[in-house]
């Protein structure tokens, strides 16, 4: 796969993460897998749940590897298929479940599409359903990080579909010409809802678009967790030392439809079966087993621990009152409360 020389070069002499980190990444993979599977089954059981549920099942390694490559003060704008980011950044499961179940105490209190809600205390930036919009907002966040010399890096994630928007072009070029501390990650699951990306673009690799912006671009196997982690870590280092943005394309495939409501009848069965064989969770589990970092019963414990956390979150959420219109409305305008000039 095509690689920008300096990104690939750094990847070659990287240090592998230690055993503890590997185990934590395995736990996060399992958590995302179990949490989204639970959401899917609740939705299918006709629980009263709000939202569109763009599940990332099959793509979990991208969020896990990316988040593991960031410092806690770095900022990240997930794609619309971004629940893995919320989980890996430590958003409490009960808060997420409360939000999905439309109850008091959730994120943004029922006022922002929850699958896109910003969570400032976790460094998660705002996304909207207007694909690509999160990129230009993230560019502004990166501009402020550079101007204020915070040392923080911004990661903006988007799907392959969003790379065809005007926002993508404007945002990439803006980030590039200002040499902003941002890493843009394309989660290429190869379909925009039903439309194969290969049928609507002429480039073979979306990362080749980076050439047009004068920045490095790289396409990697997005189901290879260690590769995602190392590549993003290098791109983040590059951004942090002031060398500007990198475009990282992670090849992957979603197990299910675009949303839980999508009948998903148009993608070929063979493709879907191949994706299951290429499952990122299974691959990482096998890798860690081979390396002797993970035993079968360790894995079993991880799954049961995740399930019990999720069940407990569900129970907590269900004890909360359902949102109602009488509950406190946030004012439309921010009151005049000028911060001290700096």
């Amino acid at each position, binding site marked *: 796969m095509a690689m920008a020389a300096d990104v690939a070069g750094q990847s070659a002499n990287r240090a592998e993460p230690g055993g503890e980190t590997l185990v934590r990444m395995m736990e996060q993979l399992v958590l995302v897998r179990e949490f989204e599977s639970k959401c899917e089954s609740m939705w299918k059981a006709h629980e009263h749940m709000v939202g569109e549920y763009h599940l990332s099942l099959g793509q979990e390694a991208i969020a896990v590897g990316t988040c593991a490559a960031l410092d806690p003060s770095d900022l990240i704008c997930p794609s619309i298929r971004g629940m893995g980011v919320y989980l890996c950044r430590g958003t409490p499961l009960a808060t997420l479940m409360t939000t999905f179940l439309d109850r008091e105490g959730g994120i943004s209190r029922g006022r922002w599409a929850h699958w896109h*809600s910003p969570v400032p205390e976790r460094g998660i930036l705002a996304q909207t359903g207007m694909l690509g919009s999160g990129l230009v907002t993230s560019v*502004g966040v990166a501009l*402020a990080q550079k101007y204020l010399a915070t040392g923080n890096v911004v990661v903006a994630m988007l799907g392959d579909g969003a790379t065809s928007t005007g926002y993508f072009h*404007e945002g990439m070029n803006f980030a590039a010409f200002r040499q902003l501390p941002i890493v843009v990650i394309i989660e290429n699951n190869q379909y925009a809802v039903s439309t194969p990306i290969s049928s609507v673009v002429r480039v073979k690799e979306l990362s080749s678009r980076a050439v047009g912006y004068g920045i490095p671009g790289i396409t990697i196997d997005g189901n290879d967790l260690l590769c995602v982690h190392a590549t993003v870590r290098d791109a983040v280092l590059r951004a942090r030392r002031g060398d500007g943005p990198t475009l990282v394309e992670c090849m992957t495939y979603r197990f299910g439809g675009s949303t839980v409501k999508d009948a998903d009848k148009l993608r070929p069965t063979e493709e879907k079966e191949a994706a299951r064989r290429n499952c990122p969770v299974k691959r990482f589990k096998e890798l860690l087993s081979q390396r002797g970092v993970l035993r079968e019963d360790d894995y079993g414990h991880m799954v049961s621990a995740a399930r019990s956390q999720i069940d407990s979150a569900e129970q907590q959420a269900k004890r909360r009152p359902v949102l109602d219109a009488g509950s406190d409305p946030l004012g*439309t305008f*921010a009151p005049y409360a000028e911060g001290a000039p700096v």
Partner: protein
Amino acid sequence: MSAVLQAPVVQTLTFREALNDALRLEMARDRRVIILGEDVGRKGGIAGVTRGLLEQFGPERVIDTPISEMAIAGACCGAAMSGLRPVGEFYYSDMLMFMADNVVTSAARLHFATGLRAPYVLRGRDGSKPEDGGPHQDSFAAWFAQVPGLKVVMPATPADAKGLLISAIRDENPVIFLEQIPLYGIKGPVPAGEYAVPLGEAEVKRAGTDVTVVCVGRCVHDALAAGERWSKQGVSVEVLDLRTLRPLDVAAIRASVKKTGRLVTVHEGWAGYGISAEVIATVSDGPELLLRAPAQRVGTLDTHIPASPRLAAACLPNAQRIDSAIAAGVR
């Protein structure tokens, strides 16, 4: 020690210079204020509003951008969310259409939905420029004034331009700041130094008793001229300059119409579903009946502004149409 020179209390400045003065003062006062836009740096802005700011504050604070309105609006939103106070410039109001998604879907909802804030200003040229002809003459103020979470400002005088821009930069919300093209060259007294005009307060620019003309932007000057003409015929016209379209100064509108009992609205942009419609609703919605005669509205005719300057002048609010409306109002 030699005598300390006192700054004059009031200077005479053009509308353009007054805006520049506001930006310069705010940038000097607050390092969080940065400017982004096409040609804002080396050129000093397409309308000359940002002249000299690059030289004074440097390229980290005055950023010449590519032609990327969506990225300018998005960058303002993201930077504002991260603690800066960006001022983005657009070439013409038409370009606000490129910016609208980020403004409406991200910025305007942000505080309501999350408690976060996006304090930024998007400012630029708005409305007619009949001498040039061609496109870029529209005023889309009403579209944005309809959106909860936004503030929309349109000054008519140099003093208001300065005072309102300073308030807009200090406001905690996204503000759309519209500078009507015919106004850039007009001169007027402008208080020196820090001078803020609160957003959301209309001003009576001419007191009268027979008919209220509610207006905004360059139409304020047309309304004032009409007031002079009608005074010779014994009709006393009150001119109420809205200055801010959102929040709308409902109390000022109602107080004036309560006094006169007659209402004419004058502004650029289509009258239907627009500023006129909102002002008249404001008058008719209240607890008491205020109007003694049907309200009259003068906006851009319900068609597209032609390129020909003569045709455009007929399409836009003009003296003849304002006089007809006042005549109908006071009949």
